[in-house]
């Protein structure tokens, strides 16, 4: 209790107050951590493995060429770009945009509607990219009359990677697998006649099941069935057939711990000679390539997902630019660089995706990529991936993942899942 009459205490009190105020001010100042970086700021989701190597090569090359630009390249981790998207969303909502960020173009750009920067004039036309980029890529980078993105690499989604030793042991010739039922028979044979796990599969995240289901649907009922579905007019029976096939695979031919692992570990099963085959995007190629004992054409080989010959299931990584850009000039330089041959070759060779420019010497790419690149330029159909943002809007994609997550991750309810999927795309 302070005695009212003592003025001596007054000084103590004032000093104390002053101290508090200063402290608070300092604290608040510290808290307001500004991204006051001048120069280029790029966010991406490649935190490890092949992706990290690729982006590093890309950024090194850029900094060499444009040494006058001060560039910050930040990786934000997580499966399937989840964390990256959250960070981007927060930044853009807080009106604190970065210069550029890696993301999927196409319908995925829906979520950034209204805050994108148009690069059509400054980059696409200036560099003549409209002629030099693969058609589908150009389409996917156009959104709402603008062109806010430049593509860097494409992964193919309709792959079946297989362990040659396993197939040999089971007496299976991969070329013979022309349909999903062929695949199921093969899996059964492997299961009966060998010790291999027939199908390596990660089920931890819903999108993994979703992407495999898409392949089965396209394989069993044709790409049109898939296209109809993403346009809101899916054939329920076809969808249920595909779901039931997926269920059959997931119940019989995968490892016990599938529901706890992701695709990295599943691929690891293939590499360590325990599993026979795996479906995934060809980013898995990046993992295989990292292991020196596991080589294309020797220990492992590739066929398009049974039933999808002549089809290139499109996935696209691009660099997208927010409007109200903090560094418009530097950003334009960066985006131009992304579209150059050099960038595309350097990045993709390490990443395991293929470049989008049509004027690249395919010999400059690794063997497997060369084959994929040629298919990119020369396929019959180019359906866009569902699980990676190109086919439907983000909200619809989320709902699709939700449908799989809620109804198709043990226990399996094909009818409910099909209904969920149909509801998701019909909004």
């Amino acid at each position, binding site marked *: 209790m302070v005695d009212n009459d003592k003025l001596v205490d007054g000084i103590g009190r004032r000093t104390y107050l002053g101290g508090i105020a200063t402290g608070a001010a300092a604290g608040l100042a510290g808290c307001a951590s500004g991204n006051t970086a001048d120069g280029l700021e790029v966010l991406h989701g490649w935190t490890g493995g092949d992706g990290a190597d690729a982006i590093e090569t890309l950024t090194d090359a850029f900094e060499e060429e444009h040494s006058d630009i001060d560039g910050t390249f930040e990786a934000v981790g997580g499966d399937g770009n989840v964390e990256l998207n959250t960070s981007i969303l927060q930044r853009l*909502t807080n009106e604190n945009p970065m210069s550029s960020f890696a993301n999927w173009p196409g319908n995925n750009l829906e979520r950034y*509607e209204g805050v994108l920067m148009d690069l059509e004039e400054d980059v696409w036309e200036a560099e003549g990219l409209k002629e030099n980029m693969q058609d589908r890529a150009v389409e996917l980078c156009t959104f709402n009359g603008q062109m806010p993105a430049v593509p860097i690499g494409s992964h193919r989604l309709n792959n079946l990677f297989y362990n040659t030793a396993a197939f040999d042991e089971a007496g299976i010739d991969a070329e013979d697998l022309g349909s999903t039922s062929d695949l199921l028979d093969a899996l059964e044979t492997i299961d009966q006649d060998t010790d291999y796990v027939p199908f390596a599969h990660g*089920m931890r995240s819903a999108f993994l099941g979703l992407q495999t289901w898409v392949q089965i649907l396209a394989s069993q009922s044709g790409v049109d069935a898939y296209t109809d579905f993403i346009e809101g007019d899916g054939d329920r029976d076809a969808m249920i057939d595909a779901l039931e096939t997926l269920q059959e695979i997931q119940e019989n031919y995968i490892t016990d711990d599938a529901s706890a692992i992701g695709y990295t570990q599943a691929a690891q099963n293939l590499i360590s000679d325990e599993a026979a085959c795996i479906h995934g995007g060809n980013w898995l190629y990046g993992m295989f390539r990292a292991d020196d004992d596991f080589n294309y054409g020797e220990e492992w080989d590739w066929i398009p997902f049974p039933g999808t010959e002549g089809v290139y299931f499109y996935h696209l990584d691009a660099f997208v630019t927010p409007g109200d850009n903090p560094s418009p000039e530097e950003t334009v330089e960066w985006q131009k660089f992304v579209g150059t041959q050099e960038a595309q070759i350097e990045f993709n060779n390490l990443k395991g995706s293929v470049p989008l420019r049509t004027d690249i010497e395919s010999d400059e790419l690794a063997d497997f990529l060369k084959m994929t690149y040629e298919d990119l330029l020369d396929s019959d159909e180019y359906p866009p991936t569902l699980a990676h943002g190109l086919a439907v809007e983000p909200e619809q994609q989320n709902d699709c993942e939700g449908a799989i997550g809620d109804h198709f991750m043990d226990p399996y309810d094909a009818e409910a899942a099909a209904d969920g999927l149909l509801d998701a795309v019909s909004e």
Partner: protein
Amino acid sequence: MATHDTTEATDSTTGPSKEVVTWKTKLRYFLNSDFVRSSPYWGIPFVLMGIAVYGGIGYNLAISFTDYAGIGRPEFSNLSLEMYRTALADGSFRQAAFQNFVLLVGFTSVSLALGLFLAVLLDYGIRYKETIQTIYLLPMALSFVVTAQVWLWMYSPGNGVLNVFVTALGFGSIDWLGNPRIALAAVIFALVWQFSGYAMVVFLAGLQSLPSDQFEAAKVDGASTAKTYIRIIIPQLKQASVGAAVVLMLFALKAFDFLYAITGDYRPPNGTDILATLMVREAFQYGQWAYGAAIATMLLLLSLSVIAPYLVYQYRQGAL
């Protein structure tokens, strides 16, 4: 001071010219009172808390009445309860709320029971009491993230510790976290492992504060040990158990960290979705700010409804 007051009183009756003095004096007294003079001390945390916490809650509430989603600014022109209506109609919300409730009740009651049991054992005086106490309390020192990783390994369907036991006994390996029917139970078990030490400590303190001659009197009266505990000792732990229960329930509401750390993304294992994970998913993955805010508000109300009876109970105790 008393005489001063009476002088003032009589002064005020003598005429309006004196009232100014009275008013000023009162103001002076007020400014010199403990409340005002101490205000710089409690005032600063109050303001900070007010802005950061209560301001945040208020803004959250405001957003929940809009339809704010994605990038842009919220529009406060058209306020409605639509988000709440949507939430209550949504199956996954109801599911999450139900699972949240099961987690709350299950986790709290099992932790209390286990904590009480061990406290009784320790109080009874087994050997190595201090060591056992420490061992039992250690898991609380772990962060949720570490606990999640540990249990992820324990529960692994391939070669997790638990499945090693299960298969050794001849059963097929169980997918603890993958099977929606038992996933929630598995999560509750892991959380109980981490927190029942807290309940044990609270009960032990309560037990040790009871005078030992009650125990002796009961013995002399002829009661067996079990009866003594059930009739005499445990009923006197009501205060302690209410306190422990409230804290445990708050821990349960915060189980978000654990669930997030298990999967590494916003979608916890099937069957274990709770309001907190749903809220974060809706807000930060899907950008549905208003919907997420509505869920957050409802979570707040749930927490308050947990605390409120306790506060009322305490108030009544104090008022007695």
